[in-house]
């Protein structure tokens, strides 16, 4: 049993099934006080520096090489050079399921082989619960911030599936009475600001779709083959046409009124902004973050103005 640092989506059911504990390095970033040196994207540079300085301890590292960015690939290699055993996981760009299974088989070997089918099944059951939680927020029974805080943890379940499951069940049982009525989607990478969803709620907007965390929930499987079939459809690893079509499907299904496109400074996803604006037939606001901290006042002004727009604040 060891701690496996992951840089993006790595099937948690497989990591737990191999008797290891996943640790999503990204989940430490929004509350980090680290000001990384030599950075492009603060997401990857922050976990990189934390690992290099020994602020985070892991036994092995899995770098998502296909399906994440080149910043993560370079920063991951820099950590690997420190001597941490590292594996590179590639998601096939074309969604080939056989290729995906081959990559998962290699990952399984790196992690020591599947030894605990019960752990795999437990993760699958918890993901089913999270999908219920996602449905509940669309029905305005749970605050979007609470759902986001659970979905974003699906990559590692805080290292403790049992405790995480109890938290999900509590969130499902505690019905909120003050859910905002403007339905927005958060497209792109998750915001580096830890209070982003709460700020949106303060302006009367409920996030009913978190693009990337939703991927964490809908990917899964109870065998290597079913995992391969599901994870081959991971949108962030696929071509933009495939990803945008999935986004459009969810926006329609969730009756979204406006889209916030979160982009990260020096991230290649910034280049997708114009394409999304051309593609999506909804009011869209672009927010660009850099370092981890509370949502800046200027971004709050943008969000408040966006909320006014969606409320019908035009002449």
């Amino acid at each position, binding site marked *: 049993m060891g701690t496996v640092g992951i840089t993006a989506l790595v099937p948690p059911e497989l990591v737990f099934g191999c008797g290891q504990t996943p640790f999503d390095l990204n989940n430490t970033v929004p509350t980090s006080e680290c000001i990384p040196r030599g950075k492009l994207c603060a997401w990857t540079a922050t976990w990189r520096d934390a690992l290099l300085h020994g602020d985070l301890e892991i036994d092995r590292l899995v770098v998502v090489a296909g399906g994440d960015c080149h910043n993560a690939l370079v920063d991951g290699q820099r950590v690997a050079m420190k001597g941490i055993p590292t594996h590179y996981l590639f998601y096939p760009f074309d969604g080939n399921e056989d290729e995906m299974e081959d990559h998962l088989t290699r990952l399984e070997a790196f992690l020591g082989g599947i030894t605990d089918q019960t752990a795999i099944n437990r993760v699958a059951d918890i993901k089913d619960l999270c999908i219920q939680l996602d449905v509940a927020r669309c029905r305005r029974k749970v605050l979007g911030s609470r759902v986001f805080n659970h979905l974003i943890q699906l990559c590692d379940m805080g290292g403790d599936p049992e405790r995480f499951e109890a938290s999900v069940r509590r969130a499902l049982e505690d019905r909120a009475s003050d859910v905002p009525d403007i339905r927005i989607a958060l497209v792109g990478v998750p915001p580096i600001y830890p209070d982003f969803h709460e700020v949106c709620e303060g302006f009367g907007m409920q996030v009913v779709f978190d693009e990337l965390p939703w991927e964490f929930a809908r990917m899964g499987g109870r065998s290597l083959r079913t995992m391969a079939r599901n994870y081959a459809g991971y949108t962030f690893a696929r071509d933009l046409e495939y990803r945008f079509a999935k986004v459009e499907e969810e926006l329609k299904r969730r009756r979204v009124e406006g889209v916030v496109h979160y982009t990260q400074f020096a991230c290649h996803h910034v280049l997708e902004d114009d394409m999304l604006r051309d593609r999506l037939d909804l009011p869209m606001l672009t927010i660009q973050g850099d370092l981890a901290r509370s949502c800046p006042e200027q971004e709050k*002004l943008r969000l408040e103005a966006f909320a006014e*727009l969606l*409320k019908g604040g035009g002449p």
Partner: protein
Amino acid sequence: MIGLDLGSTRAKAVRVVEGQVVDRREVPSPDWCQLLDMVEEGEGVATTGYFRHQVEGADAITELTAARWGVKRIASDAQIIVDIGGQDTKVQDLRTNRFVLNDKCSAGTGAFLELVASYFGKGVEDLGAMSEGAEVPADINSTCAVFAMSEMVSQLVGGASQADVVAGMHRAFARRIAELVPEGDRMVLMGGGARNTGLVKELSSLLDMDVRVPEHPAFVNAMGVVEYMTSSTARD
């Protein structure tokens, strides 16, 4: 009703009676409380701008919404709004309801104009006149306000006239703003920065569209917030 635009550097107020602006006042933002002296008993107050939530009991909206309503009143066929404020520049496309704010860099904001004016020992309102006698506007390429200042100093050292340097600064500033402006035919240029005739001239020559400056460009948001509050069809 009194409309207050409590901006980052200047606070403006208008009194609107039966749809007409009958009074205007303006003070430095730290003195915005003085504007409350205008309020008569029983008179409504609505606010916008950075300090908008500071006025107890007043309804508040953002500057972006206030600008849309204010411009609708004075130029109903406008397609684009460019609002050059003290700390940021806001560009809105009224056809698509999209907006961008230039706030991560001061090179396209009123703060940069203040920096330049202060260097010459002048007020921001003097910059337009200063550039009027320019013969060959100085070439200023930096996109950073501080480095642009360094370039201006270098141009002066090299013998360029103050008029040419200030005209060059206006051109550089206008280029910065123009990058944010979508294509269109009719634009309203407002905010305190629109009082700078040198900047208006440069921006008008850069953009291939009808650039209109309202008679009182710094008071559009104050008027807009009243317009919104008295005509709003907002959800809440």
